[in-house]
């Protein structure tokens, strides 16, 4: 199977690969997938004043899974929480020109975004309750 140029580019030059400390303030972590399924994505966002100022990923998976999560971090940076919620897997499919058998990689990336946002929200709500 041939990969699109964009998948190859993200695979060879992954954007924002790495990790934040999970307990760092303003960091939300999403981990989705399972090793036995052949893909696990960890996606992290760093939020200040409702805006995602930084994002990082680590992925165990095929080239398309790595590219999908790399692209997701690129898109997340600079977006507000509300804007980030609106990223759809179909956008990723279109941008990376993923073939049908690789659509699940984009779904996983969307799940990872949602999970990171939810984790951030949970921590922020918790901090709010603690402050009260």
């Amino acid at each position: 199977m041939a990969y699109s140029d964009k998948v190859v580019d993200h695979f060879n030059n992954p954007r924002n690969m790495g990790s934040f400390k999970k307990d760092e303030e303003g960091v939300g972590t999403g981990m989705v997938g399972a090793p036995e399924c052949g893909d696990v994505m960890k996606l992290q966002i760093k939020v200040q004043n409702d805006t995602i100022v930084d994002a990082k990923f680590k992925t165990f998976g095929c080239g398309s899974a790595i590219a999908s999560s790399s692209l997701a971090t690129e898109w997340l940076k600079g977006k507000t929480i509300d804007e980030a919620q609106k990223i759809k897997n179909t956008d990723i499919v279109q941008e990376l020109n993923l073939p049908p058998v690789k659509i699940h990689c984009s779904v996983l990336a969307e799940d990872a975004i949602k999970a990171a946002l939810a984790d951030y929200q949970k921590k922020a709500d918790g901090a709010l309750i603690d402050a009260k």
Partner: protein
Amino acid sequence: MKLPIFLDNHSTTPMDPRVLDTMLPYFVEKFGNAASRNHAFGWAAEEAVEQARKQIAKLIKADPKEIVFTSGATESDNLAIKGVLEMYKEKGDHIITSSTEHRAVLDTVKSLEGKGKAVATYLSVDKFGMVNPEDVRKAITEKTILISIMLANNEIGTINPVKEIGKIAKEKGILFHCDATQGVGKIPVDVQDMGIDLMSFTSHKMYGPKGVGALYVRKKNPRVRIAAQMDGGGHERGMRSGTLPVPLIVGFGKACELCEQEMAKDTARLIAMRDRLEASIMKALEESYLNGHPTNRLPGNLNISFAYVEGESLLMGMKDIALSSGSACTSATLEPSYVLRALGVGTELAHSSIRFGLGRFNTDDEIDYTIKKVIEIVTKLREMSPLYEMAKEGVDLKSVQWAAH
């Protein structure tokens, strides 16, 4: 050194230029039909076919009359299994085979089962991928008419104790078919000594052309009969109709002759290169696991799982080396390798496997390059892997509640 490097010699092999040379006259100049008995064109073709039959038979210690030409090993497997089941249906309908056979055997058996024409026992293998001959003995029933066990596995290269299985088959008077696609030409094969009654093999796995294979069908002790699966002109003593592809057969014959002459030399070279590849990779990369038998396997085979990285991404990172992986992402079924699963390899490690298949034309330079590339890409992808990060932090990955999808 030229890129890309071909290290996928279990899928197919490049044709030996010496094989091509022997084939060339049989396309334009000597184009006759080997079945034309009444003119010089036919005689020349027939002579060439019979010469090839001798070369092929010699490699496996058979009689030339026991060689039936087919289009390849898949057809040979189909012809052997379906042909025996149909011919001996009065005697029984039970087949014994193993869970790590090639799809050409497994799907043929399943197709017969689906039609109600056969009942099958699928023997499991040990952690090295080997069938236990005693399991074969125990699985035999009054209705067993065929045992079909492969010589060497196409993924992990493990060589089965075929001779012991052949002995049990003889003892019990049951026919023994061996899918020897990966073994013939690579390791010594002797159908007499191994007690094989039917054997499938193909030309393109041993530096010959694609599109031609053979089924060995024993003529004496016992005389094996099979029902033809294709109707037509009654070629190949009625077992396989269809005009013989003379140039391909000539090439197949030459390929067998070369394998016979050069086996000792090829084997020594391949084992040296393969062992160096294995040792260098294993030394540099922790948590790399060999799949298959540590010693009793094909000379050119090396199958390794690299924990925490996924196979398809490994292949993608080594684009200039042609390899294969047991990862689901590289298979049509989206399931990881059933062979590795049958060995008890965990699904996650099956996803992380790479098969290196070395052949006659690989060089030491290519192996050096491959060692360097493998270490580079595995290291890079582990840096990128959340699983590796967790393992380094001391998290037990088995204890994590994964959101399976």
